[in-house]
């Protein structure tokens, strides 16, 4: 059960990643690979700053800005220099690898003895529940502290989701959604689509960097390799969310991405528990996304064949 709580907590942290991927892939229809670099970038910035004694909240916000800047570069490469969107992302992601190493000074920074956001959460949780106390959840005994931390993460994700939902329904946010839906149309209505794409990719990467920052603080270290596979991970979450919620409404789609992230993390935890080799994790994640991408088309085809054979 403790494992389960941990998985849900990480799922909620990675929901930030899913939201970022949702912005670039779904709202802007921009396959942005920068994510793999900006995830680590967020972790690196926060880790370095926290070790330097900076307030962890400020460190996390700096990660937000850093990820935003990385995304901005990708957006500018794509819109102003007309570089293919995939290639722009690859260029920035590759460059970020060196930037991340410079930021951290080495390939791995431990944070276990530092004060992070989760140290605060720990303290708060202890205040609410008392040290070492256990509670019952669905018949299992779990440390009350873990439950509180889970709750804090949930509150955080709900707040961010609400903010995002609100933003994409403002006039500016509506114009951004229209940019992803039909750029020619919204240009004819006086919107600078280049600026929208740059801002959108920046926003997406800012969220992804925060996810990296929070994960580093939660697990107690930042590693230069931690971003690898994160893009497909986020995409898997978004796809699960869409499968759960077949509706088009913005609020539901955002909720779907968050739930998808938690579910996917749970699925992975269960698979690992059942003895799946961790080495195969990325392979299976990729296969999962592949299946999710080709199944709808495949099912449509078989339906057609069945109809014609009648």
């Amino acid at each position, binding site marked *: 059960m403790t494992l389960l709580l941990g998985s849900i907590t990480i799922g909620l942290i990675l929901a930030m990643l899913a939201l970022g991927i949702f912005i670039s892939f779904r709202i802007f229809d921009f396959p942005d690979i920068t994510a793999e670099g900006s995830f680590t970038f967020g972790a690196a910035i926060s880790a370095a700053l926290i070790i330097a004694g900076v307030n962890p909240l400020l460190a996390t916000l700096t990660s937000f800005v850093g990820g935003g800047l990385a995304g901005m570069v990708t957006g500018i490469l794509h819109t102003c220099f007309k570089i293919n969107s995939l290639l722009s992302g690859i260029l920035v992601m590759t460059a970020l690898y060196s930037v991340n190493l410079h930021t951290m000074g080495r390939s791995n920074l431990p944070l276990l003895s530092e004060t992070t956001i989760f140290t605060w959460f720990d303290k708060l949780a202890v205040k609410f529940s008392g040290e070492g106390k256990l509670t019952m959840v669905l018949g299992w005994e779990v440390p009350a502290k873990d439950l509180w931390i889970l709750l804090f993460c949930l509150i955080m994700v709900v707040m961010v989701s609400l903010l995002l939902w609100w*933003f994409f*329904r*403002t*006039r*500016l*946010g*509506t*114009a951004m*959604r*229209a940019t992803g*839906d*039909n750029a*020619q*149309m*919204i*240009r*004819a*209505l*006086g*919107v*600078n*689509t280049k600026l929208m794409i740059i801002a959108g990719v920046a926003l997406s990467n800012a969220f992804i960097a925060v996810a990296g920052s929070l994960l580093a603080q939660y697990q107690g270290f930042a590693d230069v390799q931690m971003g690898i596979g994160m893009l497909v991970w986020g995409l898997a979450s978004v796809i699960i969310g869409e499968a759960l919620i077949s509706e*088009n409404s913005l609020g539901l789609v955002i909720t779907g991405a968050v739930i998808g992230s938690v579910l996917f993390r749970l699925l992975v935890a269960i698979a690992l528990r059942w003895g799946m080799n961790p080495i195969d994790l990325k392979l299976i994640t990729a296969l999962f996304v592949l299946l999710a991408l080709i199944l709808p088309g495949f099912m449509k085809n078989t339906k057609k064949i069945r109809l014609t054979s009648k």
Partner: protein
Amino acid sequence: MLQVNNISKVFNPGTVNEVHALNEVSLNLPDGGFVCVLGTNGSGKSTLLNAVAGSFLVDSGKILVDDVDITRWPEHKRADFIGRVFQNPFTGTAPNMSIQENLALATRRGKSRGLGWGLPKNLIDEFKLRVTPLQMSLEDRLGNPIGKLSGGQRQALTLLMATWLKPKLLLLDEHTAALDPKTAAKVIELTEEVIRRDHITTLMVTHSMQQAVNLGNRVIMMHKGRIAYDFGEDEKRRMKVNDLLALFDELRRKDQIDNSVAELVAANYI
């Protein structure tokens, strides 16, 4: 109002696909003027429209609106005073967004967008009021995604969006070409109505001679990137569809002569 001075545009210069799409075209459109632009395929009529709209920048020449030089302005900035309806009904609307969201976007054409609520309540009532006269029973479906509508409905909405805030200049690019005759007639009727009501200066590209004869107060015919004929109000009043067809034939015959002369020359001298 609109002044186009000697604009030229070459696509794919220096390659085998080089096209002189516009060849020193000049056009002067007074306030409230309504011009129909005719021409064969590839004559440059849509290119002229797109040059004014800013889809690309011209190689030479100047474009002025109300004496302001907009030659180097980007497309989105020109949209401050230009309304557009495209040939393809899919181009003018965002398919995955609702009818009301599309309309709401149009209410801010050329204005700052900011963080105000995108779809305030009072706007929805106004949408209902202005969608009802289209007689397409869209007023009860404002929340539906626009992609589910027919081409004609989308074109009528695009027209409504382009003219929601009165534009200084309305550009219509064969906006009924993809519609069935009945729907096309309906959209043309709406077009005429809004242009007359708001006195909008209009440039309309069309394939239909009948539309060119019936609508507007001036007809220009383009050929090979140039304006071949330009008929003012008086000439246009006497004009029949057959007259226009005869002109098209004339242009085609000229082309054939050009080609056969070229062949003759080639056969004899090369």
